Each structure stands twice: as structure tokens, then as C-alpha cells.
């Protein structure tokens, strides 16, 4: 039967620096005097050494390209969405003022259009009045003659 010691459960947190200072000191002292814990500590340390003997892999050269393509696809999917999240896209900072400007332009255009129509109506009426005056002025000689002599015989 493998010998056991109640301190062995503290060996892992001791190795990981997770124990308070005082307890760390106690465990360290215990390990030096306990064959069971000493063997346990040594075997766990060796295991860690095996794990750390693995070096790192290199990232493949097309990793970045593939990732940024996924980002582009994500952003392209977002643009047609008008409500519910489109502002979270990376175009949000350009799109918001652009839309605001567009709405402003449309608003001003509408107001101008309405005003122009009223003006045109007023202009037309003015012109009609003018035409009436124009006719009078144009035919003033005749009108004055009529006033003096009355209407011609066949028109009386």
C-alpha cells in the first residue's frame, strides 16, 4: 500500500505559489523531512518539467488573411441590417453622421419644395393681377374714349 501523508494535498498549491507565506514555509520544511511528500513533490515536479519541454508551434502564414476575411464577411453581413445591431458594426462611426446629413438634406429639400410651390402660386396670382392692369394700361386710350363718347352705336 502506497504510504500517505496528510500534507500531500498541500503540495500542488505549494508548487503553484497559492499558499500564504507562513504555510509555504511550513510545507517546505515538511517536504524536506517527509519521504512520502518528498517523493510526491519530486514526481510532480518531473511531470511539470515534461510538460514544459514542449515548445511552441508557429502560426501558419495564412492565419491573419483568413481571420480578416472573416471580419470582412461579418461586416458585410451587418450593412444591410437597418435595425437591431447595425450600429454595432465598424461602419457605425461613418454611417451615423452620413445618415443624419441625408435626413437633414431631405428635410430641407422638402421644406424648400413646399415653399416654392406657395411662392409660385403667389407669383401666378400676382401675374394675373398684373395682366389685368396690363390690359387696362394697354387699352387706356380706348377706355378713355368710351368714357368720353360712350360705347359705339352698335354696342350700345
Amino acid at each position, binding site marked *: 500500500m502506497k504510504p500517505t501523508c496528510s500534507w500531500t494535498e498541500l503540495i500542488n498549491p505549494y508548487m*503553484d505559489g497559492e499558499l500564504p507565506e507562513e504555510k509555504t514555509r511550513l510545507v517546505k520544511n515538511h517536504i524536506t523531512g517527509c519521504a512520502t511528500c518528498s517523493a510526491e513533490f519530486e514526481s*510532480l515536479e518531473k*511531470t511539470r518539467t*515534461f510538460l514544459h*519541454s514542449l515548445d511552441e508551434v508557429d502560426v501558419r502564414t495564412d492565419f491573419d488573411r*483568413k*481571420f480578416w476575411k472573416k*471580419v470582412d464577411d461579418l461586416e458585410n453581413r451587418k450593412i444591410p441590417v437597418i435595425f437591431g445591431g447595425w450600429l454595432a458594426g465598424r461602419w457605425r462611426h461613418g454611417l451615423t453622421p452620413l445618415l443624419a446629413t441625408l435626413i437633414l438634406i431631405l428635410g430641407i429639400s422638402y421644406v424648400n419644395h413646399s415653399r416654392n410651390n406657395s411662392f409660385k402660386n403667389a407669383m401666378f396670382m400676382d401675374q394675373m393681377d398684373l395682366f389685368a392692369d396690363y390690359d387696362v394700361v394697354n387699352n387706356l386710350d380706348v377706355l378713355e374714349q368710351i368714357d368720353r363718347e360712350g360705347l359705339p352705336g352698335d354696342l350700345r
Partner: protein
Amino acid sequence: MIQPFFFETFFKSRGLNEVMGTDSEIELMLRFSKGDENAFRTLFLAYKKKIVNYCYRFFFNQDTAEEVSQEIFLKVYKAGPRYTPTASFSTWIFKIATHACLNELRRDKHKSFIRSIDSDEEMGGMELADDNAGPHARIEASERKKRIGKALRSLPGKQRAAILLREYQGFSYKEIGDQMGMSEAGIKSLIHRGRESLRNMLYDEFGEDS
């Protein structure tokens, strides 16, 4: 967009920079949340190799590792506008990475891990640190690499994650607990059992040769 700004000024006005340490990575992420894509690129370049290697040690398959890594970075990218710092950036990104790896594992795509471990092509790229020795040593090193990979992959997902986060990333039990949604005691137990299993598979096999 207001939220990240609020947290940034909230912590700074109360002298609580120490809450996040001097985490310039949080600053970069907050800048990204305000639309600075170069800030994201900086973080991407800084963490690319770390995340790929974390995923590689999880699956011991480079295709899967890079695919999952890209999904992780995509999640970080999408989270940008809503980012609120509640921990260091590295804790946060590795939390996302751990969840992504555990989900991928659950998708049950890796029943052939034994075959992929034995394949030299799959294991290519991950060399042992002492791999500059002669041919005999190189063969031994290659075999040892395969056994280490096999041992790691034999661990259940959570044990594997806890061991990788502790051994290769140096996170504390508390940080790992935050990342995995577990208590410190739970993490301590996972690491204890994980190391025991690895020891049984590696140390006993190698014995005094190691």
C-alpha cells in the same frame, strides 16, 4: 459606447487603476470599443501565438487549433462595442478561449485524436525544447512529444483546461476559477487530479530516463 467610457473615467477618477493593474491591454480594448481598429490589431498580434498554442495543446491538431483561435478572436472583435473591463484582458481573452475549446471538445469531433497524435504531420511544428540534439535524441524527443500530447489529451476537458491555464499561462487558481466559473477549491482539485493523471502516464512510463 458610453459604457466603456464610463468605466474608464469611473476607475480613473477614483484612483482605481490598480483594480486593473496598469493593464495597457484594457486601454487598447477600450480604444477599440470606441472605434480604433488599430488597437484591436495590436492586441491580435500580441495574443495570436499564445491563443493558437493554447488551442494546440488542447487538441494537438493545428487545423483545429487555428480554426478555434480564429473563432476566439472573432468573438473578441464582436464584443468590442460592448466591452466592459471586469478583469485583466488576458484573463478575459483566455476565458473566451477556454469556453471555445470546451465547446469544440463537446462537439465530439476528436474521437480520432489517437490517430492525429500518431501522425507526424499533425504533430509537426511543436518541437521539444531540446530538439537540437543528434538523430537518436531527435527520435526520442519526437516519441516523448507524442506521449506528452497523448497524456494531455487523455485528460477530461476541464482538467485539461485548468492544467494548461496554470502550466503554460501562469494564471492563479482564482483567475482560472473566474475563467471556468468555478471556485478556487474546485480548481485546486482539478489541478491535483490532472497532475496525478499526467504523472501516472508520463513519469511512471519514463521512470529514471527522464
